[in-house]
């Protein structure tokens, strides 16, 4: 009996409820309806201060989504480049991509945020939010690079060989054969990274970008209702990530049906 090699890696995204889990009391349902119920209770029976708090937050939610979507777009572009670099036969490109990933993953996101935010300020004058987006995108690009690499690697070598033997060159092969197949494998972890990034955008609150958390902190610093404010902030985040993770799991389910055609 040979030695089995098992590799566990745990994603940073919200736990993705299995769509096959048909039980009435799934953890997702408990969490989701529990969250909804608590929010409803607080708003109905303790409108002061919770109604004030929740009125304070909406534009923070918008900012959070703006930063998330812009950052993930940048991260996907950088990630594709880094991922292609990591599997490239060009030694220099490969090393550059690997080093980028190694360095970015070796430094705490918060430190990188501070660094890019302030260092970037020395070089060019960019608005705060753009600086935050560049910083987040730069960091997540490295993680995304690993996702792309794994996705591309998951496509059977035979596909590449068949494509090459028809006369496609390597980049045409990547474009017409490998990437179109890889995206199905890549989509779920990209979705996970999206959720993880959404959560990590809470860090930009430290750079005074008015996201959900910043809004909450502003409210708390004026009203001194730290406990109540953070309760609401946590519930809002939880609600958003639960909804997103559900959407993601539905999407994955669709995809796997599509595969099984």
């Amino acid at each position, binding site marked *: 009996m040979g030695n089995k090699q098992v590799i566990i890696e745990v994603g940073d995204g919200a736990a993705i409820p299995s769509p096959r889990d048909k039980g009435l009391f799934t953890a997702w349902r408990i969490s989701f309806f529990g969250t909804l119920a608590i929010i409803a209770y607080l708003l109905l029976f303790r409108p002061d201060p919770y109604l004030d708090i929740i009125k304070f937050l909406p534009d923070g939610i918008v900012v959070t989504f703006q930063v998330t979507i812009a950052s993930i777009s940048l991260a996907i572009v950088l990630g594709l480049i880094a991922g292609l670099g990591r599997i490239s036969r060009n030694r220099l490109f490969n090393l550059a991509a690997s080093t980028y990933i190694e360095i970015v993953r070796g430094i705490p996101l918060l430190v990188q945020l501070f660094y890019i935010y302030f260092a970037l300020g020395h070089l060019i004058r960019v608005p705060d939010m753009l600086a935050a987006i560049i910083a987040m995108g730069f960091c997540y690009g490295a993680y995304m690079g690993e996702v792309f690499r794994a996705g591309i690697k998951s496509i059977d070598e035979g596909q590449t060989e068949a494509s090459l033997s028809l006369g496609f060159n390597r980049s045409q092969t990547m474009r017409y054969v490998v990437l179109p197949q890889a995206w199905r494998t890549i989509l779920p972890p990209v979705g996970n990274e999206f959720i993880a990034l959404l959560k990590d955008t809470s860090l930009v609150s430290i750079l005074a970008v008015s996201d959900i958390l910043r809004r909450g902190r502003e409210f708390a*610093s004026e009203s001194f209702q730290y406990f109540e404010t953070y309760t609401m902030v946590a519930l809002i985040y939880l609600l958003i990530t639960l909804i997103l993770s559900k959407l993601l799991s539905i999407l994955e389910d669709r995809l796997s049906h599509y595969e099984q055609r």
Partner: protein
Amino acid sequence: DATWPPMEFVNSDKQIVGYSIDYMTAAAKAAGFTPVFKNVAWDGIFAGLATGKYDAVCSSVSITEKRKKAMDFSTPYFKVRQALIVAKDSSVKSLADLKGKKVGGQIGTTGYFAIKAADGVEPKSYDEVGLAMEDLKVGRIAGVVCDDPVAANYAMEQYKDSLKIAATIETGEVEYYGIAMKKGNKETLELVNKGIEAVSKTSYVQELQQKWIGQ
């Protein structure tokens, strides 16, 4: 950094308001420019100034020798002292009574520097003074040092049941708030100084005192 009530803070309409804001607005009117207020985290507020993210910092910045080396200041517009806040039931009378205890202040403020300068007190820096007040209230630290209007706001209003001002701290010199500008930014400096000069001569200062500080 609008987390410094009553000088500058975000009200429930998400507006940045406070003494400094009103003062600056009036000064700007007098000098003929329109200020745009921007909320920036204190920790890094001077970095943003240095890199030109904004032209001036109007955020209860005390004028200190060290800061003067890094940036230019307008004429002073407000006189402050540092106040020590402690729990209501505490018998502490001065920073010296807090030897070996933790005392909190906002990172990079003169209050925090005062704690660091005090003998035998363990300084603890917070991103926002409000967080320090919270920790004081739950007993993680024994005192908080900050500007006296802010201290008054907390001890008299928000936490009047649990906190009190124990003492004002003599830091040797009188401390004044000034508007900070990037070194060498003469144009803005003159403009701001002109405005402050104009306002300081009016009774609007007393009005503001009444409105925001209540004394």
